[in-house]
């Protein structure tokens, strides 16, 4: 179902449920993987994704069609991830200004839903050494292959800054691979 049709059907009470089902079918996996790569743990991702779609249900009527539904969903998802990670840092007594995400490394290795090989594990560990924003940009570009223009709409950052951020992230990951066994 086209996004515009989802939005118009959602506006009508008798087709609201149908529209929301279509939205879930279309976007839930994309949003899940976007969240999962940020929060790492499956159960955390599950909670965050459900919260995201509850928010979507409550706010879709107010969605302004001058932005894409897809970028709007990703913006909500990204904000929810950041909020979740801040709360997790808080619980673990880690400063919110601490940009490194290495506190998630243990979650990665102890997770029952990670079956990556040695190289995949190493890449994830390298990604976790990046500051949060660079980690977001790297994941969105490397794994999700989101266009810079769309990323700019989602993250509210210029395309030039996103490219620079991705470049830095790639350089750091390259260095991590060179210096770590």
């Amino acid at each position, binding site marked *: 179902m086209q996004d515009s049709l989802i939005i118009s059907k959602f506006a009508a009470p008798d087709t609201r449920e149908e529209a929301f089902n279509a939205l879930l079918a279309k976007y839930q996996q994309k949003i899940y993987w976007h969240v999962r790569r940020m929060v790492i743990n499956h159960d955390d991702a599950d909670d965050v994704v459900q919260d995201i779609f509850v928010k979507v249900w409550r706010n879709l009527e107010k969605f302004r069609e001058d932005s894409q539904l897809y970028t709007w969903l990703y913006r909500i998802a990204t904000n929810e991830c950041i909020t979740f990670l801040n709360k997790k840092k808080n619980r673990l007594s880690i400063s919110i200004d601490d940009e490194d995400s290495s506190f998630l490394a243990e979650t990665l290795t102890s997770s029952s*839903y990670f079956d990556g090989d040695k190289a995949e594990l190493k890449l994830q560990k390298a990604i976790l050494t990046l500051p949060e924003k660079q980690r977001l940009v790297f994941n969105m570009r490397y*794994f999700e292959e989101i266009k810079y223009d769309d990323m700019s709409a989602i993250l509210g950052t210029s395309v030039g800054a996103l490219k620079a951020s991705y470049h830095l992230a790639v350089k750091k990951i390259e260095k991590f691979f060179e210096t770590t066994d």
Partner: protein
Amino acid sequence: MKEQNTNKFPFGKNKSNDELRRNPFIVPNGYFDNLPNQIRSEISLREKHSVEQNSFSVPDGYFDQLTQDIKTQITVKDLKEKISEDGFTVPKNYFDTLRNHTLDKIHAKPKKTIYLKKWVSYASVACLLIAMSVGGGYFWKSQSEQEFSNTESLSKIPDDEIINYLAQSVEEEDVLYLSQYFGVDHSDHDHSPGIGCHAREEDLEDYINYSL
């Protein structure tokens, strides 16, 4: 002036001077009739091409960015050849159940929302207030910092104002988070010693700094 016969060479001995002077080259039929039009067309085309060449431009700093982008692409291409997946998995049939769980959560009846919002909010606000008053020397570092001067002590602000501010700012999920965070079981409200009563002052301060 008419050209003089200057033929001094030994070839063409049997030919007359007029025969030797004849142009041996030929052109296609009608060539000179079409030539002016062809020249005009060529001029027109070259002028247009020149205009088009000048109309292209690139964003400022494009070529610096391009070098960086190419280097990034090369590194990423090499990396993707070795590692293209992230290694994460989900439980079997997870995405089928996710939809149902999400819909259940949406349609679930709110549980004692008003009760929690009013009763627990005010209880936690009161505990926060007591903890902060006892501390006395702690500074207000959250969003309200913009509204209050750094030197103004919290104790000088009327309690009612603080209670009103927190009651308006604290959301239900913050209260739930607060109660979980401070490890207090709020299921038994009648016998509970009160939310936040076991909380350490640093925890309260962190909560104010990062969550409100």
